[in-house]
């Protein structure tokens, strides 16, 4: 399981690509999908590489990304 998951709000995404550029691990890419406005939306091209750092969401100008991270297991101790 990857450490992080990025969820794209396809209707908010304007396909500017800033998140793709900013991701340190090359997780994101353009999908072949267009939203109803006609923008080519972003998706997790390599989900296994995601660390859940949320840099993508921070640079996203359209607040189109939500980020989830795996809870640390050590809390059980």
């Amino acid at each position, binding site marked *: 399981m990857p450490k992080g998951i990025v969820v794209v709000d396809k209707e908010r995404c304007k396909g*500017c690509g800033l998140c793709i550029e900013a991701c340190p691990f090359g997780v994101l890419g353009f999908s072949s999908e267009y939203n109803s406005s006609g923008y080519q939306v972003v998706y997790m091209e390599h989900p296994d590489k995601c660390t859940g750092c949320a840099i993508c969401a921070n640079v996203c100008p359209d607040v189109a990304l939500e980020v*989830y991270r795996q809870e640390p297991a050590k809390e059980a101790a």
Partner: protein
Amino acid sequence: MSVEVAIPEGYVKIFSKPRALSDAKYTYCPGCHHGIITRLVAEAIDELGILERTVGIAPVGCAVFLDRFFNCDFVQAAHGRACAVATGIKRARPDLVVFTYQGDGDLAAIGTAETIHAANRGENITVIFVNNGIYGMTGGEMAPTTLPGQRTTTTPLGREPRLHGFPLKISEMLAQLDGPAYITRQAVFDYKHIVRAKQAILKAFRNQLEGKGFSLVEILSTCPTNWRMSPADAGRWVAEEVVKTYPLGDLKDVG
């Protein structure tokens, strides 16, 4: 969010849209830094827990629809007059947290007088000044902050300082005054700078809560549409070129 993805167990949400923002989609162009700056202001309002007593002043320009994006009270000001409107609100109801959000045309051209005099009076307001060196909404005309040589629709051969004046350094000017408490210049072209800009915005709001007076955060921004650059190239242009004319950092801080 219109999201259908099921998140497996064991994951926690660590980033989502701030509460201060509404569900309305931004009207900014793809890749425009305005969207980041707008979100940072909303995050600051969330973190300080002041949504219910905040009043924003929407300018004329690309952020003219700002009131749609926020969940707090808003007033729409005439072009350039945001600081005067903010002054009136703050004087009438000092308990409110009042901020303006203005572009360079609004704040540094037609509103220069209002800006300088509000700063000089030390009005206890927070000013977010988005500087992208161009008039975005009207079609990419020269702004007072346009760089020398920069092509705009009203400087088709590039800004020539002898004809069109020099870049107006509003933050440096305001820092000379006795009125302001905090004047800083930030940028949002990468993660590190976004984090710093957020801290500056938080401080500018905290200053108001503590009664310290006029705080202005200038944020270097992009206009991919009118600069005719890709969003990524526009960010690099800020990082490599714009900062030479507009160096980042605090210009005044009374602490």
